[in-house]
């Protein structure tokens, strides 16, 4: 029998970007707020100190900052007719754990997802006709507009600290920025990072072909930065230990140095680490949450925390897992294609596994270890460019960004050699030594559209350390995804060729999704937002249609996946939903739509 604690006003589950933003925004209400984080505390000085943090074996190979799959993992399969088996080690994606969550180890790429994504079905119906969208593609407008989110994107950018160059300031196209981005009221808070040689070559080649390359907007500080809450961040040192690591210089925008310490200045905000939430508790009607049940993982004790409002702010997969474990909303069944929770699970295509062009130069050194998580340049001409005619490029929906410029060159994993090189021996060593300095990748990152087979459900066999069913992921890439990547690779090759390498190789294939090598932690969907309770899990304020005192933040609410990285809208929508809770829900609890 769980020990029952005195009730509080709000429980927030998970202390990453979304949980930190919620706690910071709701803290000043004075309400009693408890944040439950299943991992431990993290500080820069103790957890990300030099030299220990620059340890490729510990943090990249052994995934020390990530979710521990020995305790809780998911099962995976490519389609509903396969038997799902446990993902016994981390691979394809790396959810974080502990205070700061995945916001500690993210690469920092920050995008504003605009109406190109938020009104995707309307856009395609209008431009290409209703028949252009495949019958089995559950493509949906999100029920929210870029105009509504714009101020919140700005708030997130000035909280995290983003280095970049505006492409559209108040409707005026800015040279050198992304001309296809949604109009922004303010430029980025920081100028772009210093471009490396590979970036400059990519930019020049792209622009000569008539495309529009721009520096990737990213949360490494190009200069020391004080954010809107007065939190101070340092300057990026281009050390090349970024994407699986915390930053010793506080030069990467991360929740543990921005929103979380600001939230914790409010004495009414109580952060409990090592507190693993198992389910949201509902009353007898099933329409109202009464709190959460969690386990103190240091003692194993089960604890009930009653609360008036529950905000799920874990990683996308964990939020969907909790909804399913709690019986909130109707679970999706891929056989009948009925139900909503767990539907529209999407991933991203590319990630270097397929769809990359590897270039080799023997007349220059790129010094690829001088790198940052988001260093590089991007071309958005085949993604957010609405004039680009998809019907003539293979007939797909969505698109791909194309980029160059690497996040690291740590040699355990980075030692590119031309295809056909032996895997070991003196010849292998000579090729590794020869090309380490002379290689560049140009790669596409593709959107992934919903497919009725792709979903998240509860596994019938395998359990986590608490005896709860694991989340079961059914996912594969489908025809639209391959069309996107096939075209992206052609365009990448065109740019690569213009960079004039000695050799270049294309690794595109229509291989199915595999859980094994790392691709990206851009998992989306499972609790999609929308304007109709019959076709969505949460409304535009991220509020559960079924249980109105439960809100769901993060990428779980995305009805499809863009080519852009997800953190920008995760941050913006957390601020947006926090405003709705603060200004409307708390005054008059009930459905906001």
């Amino acid at each position, binding site marked *: 029998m769980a020990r029952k604690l005195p009730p509080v006003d709000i429980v927030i589950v998970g202390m990453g970007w979304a949980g930190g933003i919620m706690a910071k925004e709701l803290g000043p209400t004075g309400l009693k707020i408890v944040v439950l984080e299943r991992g431990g505390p993290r500080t820069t000085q103790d957890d990300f100190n030099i030299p220990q943090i620059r*340890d490729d*074996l510990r943090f990249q190979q052994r995934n020390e900052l990530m979710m521990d799959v020995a305790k809780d993992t998911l099962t*995976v399969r490519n389609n509903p007719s396969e038997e799902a*088996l446990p993902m016994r080690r981390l691979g394809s994606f790396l959810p974080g754990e502990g205070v700061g969550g995945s916001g500690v180890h993210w690469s920092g790429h920050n995008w504003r997802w605009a109406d190109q994504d938020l009104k995707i079905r309307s856009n395609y119906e209008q431009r290409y006709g209703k028949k252009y969208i495949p019958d089995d593609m559950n493509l949906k407008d999100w029920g929210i507009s870029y105009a509504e989110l714009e101020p919140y994107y700005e708030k997130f950018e000035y909280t995290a600290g983003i280095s970049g160059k505006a492409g559209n300031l108040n409707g005026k196209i800015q040279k050198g920025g992304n001309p296809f981005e949604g109009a922004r009221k303010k430029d980025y808070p920081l100028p772009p990072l210093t471009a490396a*040689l590979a970036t400059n070559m990519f930019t020049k080649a792209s622009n000569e072909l008539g495309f529009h390359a721009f520096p990737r907007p990213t949360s490494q500080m190009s200069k020391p930065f004080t954010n809107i809450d007065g939190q101070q961040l340092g300057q990026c040192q281009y050390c090349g230990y970024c994407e699986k690591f915390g930053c010793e210089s506080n030069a990467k925008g991360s929740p543990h140095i921005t929103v979380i310490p600001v939230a914790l200045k409010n004495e009414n905000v109580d952060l409990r680490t090592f507190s693993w939430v198992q389910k949201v508790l509902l009353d007898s009607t099933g329409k109202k949450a009464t709190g959460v049940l969690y386990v103190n993982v240091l003692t194993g004790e089960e604890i009930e925390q009653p609360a008036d409002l529950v905000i799920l702010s874990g990683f996308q997969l964990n939020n969907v897992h909790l909804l399913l474990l709690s019986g909130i909303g109707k679970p999706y069944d891929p056989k009948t294609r009925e139900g909503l929770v767990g539907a529209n699970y999407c991933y991203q295509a590319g990630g270097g596994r397929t769809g990359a062009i590897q270039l080799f130069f023997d007349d220059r*050194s790129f010094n690829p270890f*001088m790198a940052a998580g988001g260093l590089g340049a991007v071309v958005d001409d085949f993604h957010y460019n609405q004039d680009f005619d998809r019907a003539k490029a293979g007939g797909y929906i969505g698109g791909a960004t194309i980029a160059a410029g690497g996040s690291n060159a740590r040699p355990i994993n980075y*030692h590119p050699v031309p295809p056909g090189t032996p895997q070991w021996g003196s010849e292998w060593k000579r090729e590794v*030594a020869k090309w380490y300095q002379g290689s560049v990748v140009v790669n596409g990152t593709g959107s992934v559209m919903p497919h009725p087979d792709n979903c998240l459900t509860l596994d019938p066999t395998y359990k986590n350390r608490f005896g709860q069913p694991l989340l079961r992921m059914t996912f594969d890439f489908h025809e639209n995804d391959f069309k996107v990547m096939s075209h992206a690779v052609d365009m990448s090759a065109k740019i690569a060729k213009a960079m004039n390498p000695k050799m270049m190789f294309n690794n595109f294939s229509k291989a199915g999704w595999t859980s094994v090598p790392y691709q990206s932690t851009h998992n989306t969907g499972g609790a999609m937002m929308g304007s109709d309770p019959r076709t969505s899990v949460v409304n535009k304020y991220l509020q559960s249609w079924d249980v109105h005192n439960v809100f769901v933040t993060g990428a779980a609410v995305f009805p499809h996946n863009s080519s852009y990285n997800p953190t920008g809208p995760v941050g913006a929508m957390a601020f947006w939903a926090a405003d709705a809770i603060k200004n409307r829900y708390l005054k008059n609890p009930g459905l906001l739509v």
Partner: protein
Amino acid sequence: MPDPKMRRRDVLLGAGVVGASALPIAAPPAVAQPAAPAATPAKGAAPAAGPAPAGYTFLKPSEQAFVEAMVDHMIPADELTPSGTDVGLAIFIDRACAGSWGKGDRLYLQGPWKQGSANQGYQLPLTPAELYQRGIAGSNAYCRKTWGKSFDRLAAADKETFLKDLAAGKIMFAGGIPGREFFTMAYQTVMEGLFSDPIYGGNRNMVGWRMVGFPGVGANNAENIKKYNDGTRFTVEPLGIADFS
């Protein structure tokens, strides 16, 4: 060109020469202290502490022989690096197996156990250390059956054939462990030993990093990235964790 500092291990363990059964499990302290003068301290003074000895803590003699032969074959001594054993790869692998990774840290080890598709990843009920041990036993059994000798005693060409067949998934060990699973892990540990921080026992004298020009852990490149964006190679003496400790 082997680093003279690394010769001690060759003497101690007769790497790749002496039969496995003749190897000492742990070197006696007197031999393990090459700094002979310090070993006879002045009267009244405490004995000087020497460098950490590099003996095995986990691998059995037959396993030591296999691992040394494998890393020396994959990373032979040449103009770029000393041999795999001299780079510390066998010790790196021994330590990795002995440590938390080897014992299954961050590995979901609950059944039921089923062979899945390649896309579903690793599905054996073995920890990495167990897979190393069973993989070595399986490899030696296969080599004895095929060539009449354990792997470490094979001619270089036969070692090459065996490793290529293992990598290509052509070998299934008696008892049902796919050879490819063993190879995938063994190859990963060779890469880790060659390129991870020397504090873990491999990449001695940072030869893996020197081979490619990787600067190690000390990088502060906010200025360098401006200076070196014209194709000029940035070279610097690499630094590891121990250099900052």
